[in-house]
């Protein structure tokens, strides 16, 4: 029996492995719950992801590996996660323009539905801070409707799932200190320089 098995195994080496695309069909059938792609930036490669409703994730891959980001999306949003760059074309273009200094705000829709409660309020308040402006953790807490929840505001910002587009880098510590930044404070400095908020 071994000879026939060897024949099959050898013949199988010549079977095609260049497989047809399934992503486009998944999109038309409404099964692409989370589309993601990788976007290059001066701060290293980013992974960006969107539901049909809007953006749900931007992540620095040197901070958190792509695999980990995708696992989180599978758990939090839907396990139907597929690499599908087309849905991310607009955010890719807007990020490119932002890093080239040709864009001051992001117009891509954001899917806020996976953020709850105070975190959502803090991040919405953060999204209103304009290009070149800065605020403080206390300021954002107040804008989110809870002026005393400064520490909670800091936590919400630390867990921002969409850095850059929700500009948590514009939130500093009171007294002018930079404060922390998910992905490294040198990125925060770079972005504030880019926006002219830091000289």
């Amino acid at each position, binding site marked *: 029996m071994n000879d026939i098995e060897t024949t099959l195994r050898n013949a199988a080496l010549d*079977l*095609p492995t260049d497989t047809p695309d399934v992503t486009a069909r998944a999109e038309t059938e409404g099964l692409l719950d989370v589309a993601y792609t990788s976007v290059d930036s001066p701060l290293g490669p980013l992974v960006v992801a969107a539901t049909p409703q809007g953006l749900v994730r931007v992540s620095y891959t040197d901070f958190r590996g792509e695999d980990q980001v995708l696992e989180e999306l*599978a758990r939090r949003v839907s396990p*139907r*996660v*597929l690499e599908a760059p087309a849905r991310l074309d607009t955010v890719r273009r807007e990020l490119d323009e932002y890093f080239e200094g040709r864009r001051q705000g992001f117009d891509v829709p954001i899917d806020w539905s996976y953020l709850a409660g105070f975190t959502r309020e803090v991040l919405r308040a953060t999204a209103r801070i304009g290009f070149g402006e800065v605020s403080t953790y206390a300021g954002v807490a107040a804008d989110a409707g809870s002026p005393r929840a400064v520490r909670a505001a800091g936590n919400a910002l630390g867990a921002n799932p969409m850095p850059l587009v929700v500009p948590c880098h514009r939130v500093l510590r009171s007294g002018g200190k930079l404060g922390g930044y998910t992905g490294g404070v040198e990125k925060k400095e770079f972005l504030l320089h880019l926006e002219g908020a830091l000289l």
Partner: protein
Amino acid sequence: MKLPPFQALLDEHRADVYRFLVATVGPSDADDCFQETWISALRAYPTLRRAENLRAWLLRIAQNKSIDAHRARGRRAIPVGTVPERASPSPPDGDPQLWARVRDLPAKQRTAVFCRSVLGMPYAELALLLESSEDAARRNVHEGLKRLKEELSE
């Protein structure tokens, strides 16, 4: 329930699923069956209760699509006057004669032969795929290989 991102399944198993389909339904129907397999899998995926044995789960879906394709081909075999033209040439499948013999095996035997001989699948996994006992899985491999051997030595 912690299911991996669907893209991880696609990356890990797409080549095996495609080779299985080219071998068991032939190059002309393999592309359609491949898409049908993955779309069905994607549709059902969030309702899966276990993240184990995903390869057997995917190949069972692929086997069902291949059975559908064989049935459809049986219906198409009734003379219709004209032969439909193909838009593009089908991809090659290596050894057409050998795979044609595999395609002529009963469904469970062609699945068993491919998964065991080409993918090296353990009998326990093959039994899950075939929804049978391990003994039955073993018999399907044995009978399929025996028949292939006889036919190829004719």
